[in-house]
């Protein structure tokens, strides 16, 4: 997989990353409608098992746009939109979103924005999940036991993020490339010409 020549964001990079963030804001809203909140209420293991869903935009944004800051921009915007639409966790997502996003961004930055293979996506998803879980544990669940709650919570969140955000994000990018909508992005050029 080749990276683009320049790290400068084109308009299309900015707008499509933003639209992905906004679309995920809407998807999270619909997710809330579908499960009517129970997923937010169940502490363990339910919520942590599906936790990775919240981190998909970071991996998807980076894999599609492949520019510095793509993971950060996409997930931060998704978090902002879910706050604007109303979220059970309130507006500290305004801080938590960027914190998770920065963790994912770190992984892509470590490759110099040159590698966008599956292992990188897995690592980015996992790290974002760990950051999110740490934030939860310290900010929202102080006073809980490490052995019975905190460590399992972090671990399950990390695994969920690896599978849902990492593997899921990678396959989602590939499926989107197959529809032709990513033709103006490097991710869309990895498929044979039609």
């Amino acid at each position, binding site marked *: 997989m080749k990276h683009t020549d320049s790290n400068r964001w084109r308009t299309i990079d900015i*707008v499509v990353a933003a639209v992905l963030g906004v679309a995920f804001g809407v*998807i999270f809203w619909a997710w809330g409608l579908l499960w009517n909140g129970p997923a*937010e209420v169940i502490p363990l293991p339910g*919520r942590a098992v599906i936790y990775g869903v919240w981190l998909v935009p970071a991996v998807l944004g980076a894999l599609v746009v492949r520019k510095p800051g793509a993971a950060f921009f996409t997930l931060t915007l998704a978090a902002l939109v879910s706050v604007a639409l*109303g979220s059970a*966790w*309130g507006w500290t997502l*305004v801080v938590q979103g960027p914190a998770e996003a920065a963790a994912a961004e770190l992984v892509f930055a470590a490759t110099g924005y040159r590698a966008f293979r599956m292992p990188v996506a897995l690592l980015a998803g996992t790290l974002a999940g760990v950051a999110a879980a740490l934030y939860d544990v310290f900010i929202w669940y102080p006073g809980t036991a490490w052995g019975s709650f905190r460590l399992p919570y972090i671990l399950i969140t990390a695994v969920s993020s690896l599978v849902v955000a990492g593997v899921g994000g990678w396959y*989602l990018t590939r499926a989107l490339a197959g529809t032709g909508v990513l033709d103006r992005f490097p991710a869309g050029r990895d498929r044979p010409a039609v």
Partner: protein
Amino acid sequence: MIGVEPVAAPDAPLARRNPVAKLAAALVFSFILVATLDPVAPAIALAIELALLPLFGVRYRVLARRALPLLAGGVGIVATLVLFAADRSGRVLLDVGPVLVTEGVLVTALGLVLRMFAVALPGVIVFATTDPTDLADALIQNAKAPARFAIGALAAFRLVPLLGQEWQTIALARRARGVDAGRNPVARLRLFGSTAFALLVGAIRRGTRLAVAMDARGFDAGTPRTVARRQHFGTADWLLLVGAAVLAGGALAVSIALGTFRPLLG
């Protein structure tokens, strides 16, 4: 249907403040409160927030409706603590299998739930009183946010109601194709995934066209952008910011003076 328009009286004295000032004040207020686990400081903070609400032009009914989703988060916190609290000191109130509720657990839970609401309400107020366009303008002009990203995000944000409608259309279209899930949770998940995928494809298509249309009007021209709408950050805005810090700090100080303060770390 989802709406993202501000719902406040636009000329209320604090609603008119610079969006960046409101955002920063709310962040400062919230994150000073995060530092404690006791119920007293958040209770004082909640009282302050509710007392200031009329100055933001937000009616209590509106606030209650917007804050409703927070209840789910509150229930989550209580449930988690009941099951997994580290400190189970105090009188035992309930003991059923893994559920061991003590006075200590209840006080911690009360503190956390109050804190959650106290921390969340400033955000609800900011989003209820701020027009997205004004926020983007202020972020660019007063917070030196990169203009291309702020405008790009704003243009995408305009699509929220449209994408919300599209979600419902796509969901109906699945049913028309003979795909429904009934009560099967796995089928529901798959249906959700397939709907989300169709939404993403449409959103990316729209985003691509939007980017081209923006470039056609010189968005990437490289000439320095001018601004049609001025955002001022004045003394009153600084006062709002300082006031937020002082009020939240005051709530903490009262809690320390009363000896109820429990630091988050330590």
